[in-house]
């Protein structure tokens, strides 16, 4: 499996946040699970900042899990980890999924507190309200609660 390093053009918005008492629910949609994962990653980043994140640096990561739902949590947690250790925010995502393995590329830049005005920091993606499924309209959705 190889992944293109080409920067995706500005991604359309097909994600949402949904309410949770203390934390934040997020959901992404797409024609494939990979697209739904990309959209959910945009939703994850929107928890942190509503500002534009410039795609200056590309970071690649891999993860795997026994099923798509667990793979989704792995994916979000891998992004949270990269944000934390690199002190970066990401604004564009590309995902390839083959069997139980995922390869992703994240494009972003170091946090600029003044410009990004980050609101809060995701601690971890949880299994609560976790669902990755093909909806009745044929689109895939990927959702869970993120602890912030």
């Amino acid at each position, binding site marked *: 499996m190889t992944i293109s390093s080409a920067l995706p053009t500005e991604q359309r918005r097909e994600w949402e946040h949904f309410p949770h008492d*203390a934390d934040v629910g997020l959901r992404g949609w797409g024609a494939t699970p990979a697209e739904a994962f990309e959209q959910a990653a945009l939703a994850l980043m929107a928890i942190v900042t509503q500002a534009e994140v410039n795609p200056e640096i590309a970071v690649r990561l891999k993860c795997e899990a026994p099923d798509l739902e667990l793979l989704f949590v792995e994916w979000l947690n891998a992004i949270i980890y990269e944000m934390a250790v690199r002190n970066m925010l990401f604004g564009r995502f590309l995902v390839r999924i083959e069997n139980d393995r995922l390869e992703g590329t994240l494009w972003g830049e170091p946090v600029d507190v003044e410009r990004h005005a980050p609101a809060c920091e995701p601690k971890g993606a949880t299994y609560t309200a976790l669902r990755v499924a093909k909806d009745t309209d044929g689109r895939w959705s990927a959702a869970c609660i993120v602890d912030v």
Partner: protein
Amino acid sequence: MDPARFTRVDGTTWRVEPSGTMRVPVIIYADENLIQDMDDKVFEQAVNVARLPGIVQASYVMPDAHWGYGFPIGGVAAFDPDRGGVISAGGVGFDISCGVRTMLTGLSVADILPVQKQLADSLFHQIPAGVGSESAITLDAAEMDAMLAKGAHWAVARGWGEMRDLERIEEQGRMVGARPDCVSDRAKERQRREMGTLGSGNHYLEVQAVAEIFDTAVADAFGLAQDGVVVTIHCGSRGLGHQIGTEFLKEMVVTAKEVGIDLPDRELACAPIDSEVGQRYLGAMRAAINCALANREILGHYVRRVFAHFFPDNDLRLLFDVSHNTCKVERHLVDGKRRDLFVHRKGATRAFGPEHESLPAALRPVGQPVLIGGSMGTGSYVLVGETTSEAKAFSSACHGAGRALSRHAALKQWSGRKIVDDLASQGILIRSPSTRGVAEEAPGAYKDVGAVVAAAEHAGLARSVARLRPLICIKG
């Protein structure tokens, strides 16, 4: 939540008797209004906890409970290793040892007011807070392991804190049994540049005034006087704790399945206490507790440094430092016998009553300070542990107001800018890198902390000592 789902025992005690696969009852301490405002998920989650192997006495719910993951936030449960008890990563949560410390400044409101703005600005500049803030400390591998093994003792030895603080910290500043070798490289990497940072979300640093005293004798013993000023810090084990929570949750889902534990919810992921994974988690979680204790000690040192600039003769003493998300081995009386139990507190405060052996001499006659965080605009409370608290909920009490509205709903209702201006007109200065963060944490998004404290007091979990009102709040 419909109170009719519970059997009412008294004004603040409600039960759900065991049925189906529940091993023990659920006992919730709250008044009727607080229960009505809780999400139905709290009921579901408390019942699920009651199904876990080796649970002792009851699955308890504190008055500030809300929907968590696996355990409700405000959930307390103890497990007996001799009866197949488990340890649950979900029962501790991602923010391991998140907690509160309150420091006595010896100053009065009149001392603070002339420099309130400068003090707010200085604290905001000196205390790294929020996403993207940078710590002045970077740990190499050896220092990381030393910090994880020694907690606040490590911080004091490096000059970030004072020896006399240690007896005023839960576990005397160092959680015994920590095993840095059980902490992954990824968790350590996440923490390498995060020591002495406040974090974000509901974490804060507040300069507060004592607004009201309810128990003069205990307030005297605690060093709290009317219009006295204290500093309260709310934060936890930062990235290291989050990563340990993430990793062990995943591992324990597999373990539970392997040992035949039927999980009603994946977030209840757990392992037998005496299993290899269970022991490894304990070692890692205790290391994360040390990380949180060291982190709050360093932040306390930074506060002292800022105050020393404005008040050169000032001497900040620690009242107490207590955690909200832990699993601790404690000896409790059950069925007439003292047993060593693994007490999980997820969004709950340890609340030891008077004469408890772990308390320092100055506090032993009165009991442990129970520090209840508020939100930016509403007050915080200092309570004291009651002797009755042990029988009620393994010496536990509530930990804060608890959210009443989601961040989502708060954002629709409030503007961060307006909250900052409104609070400023009430004499409360907010400093935060994000106005959206302020809106999400709007005081109105939290429950009435006074009602929560009143219910905890009525239930015999802890007794009110003083109410604090904010003067300055630094939000991450």
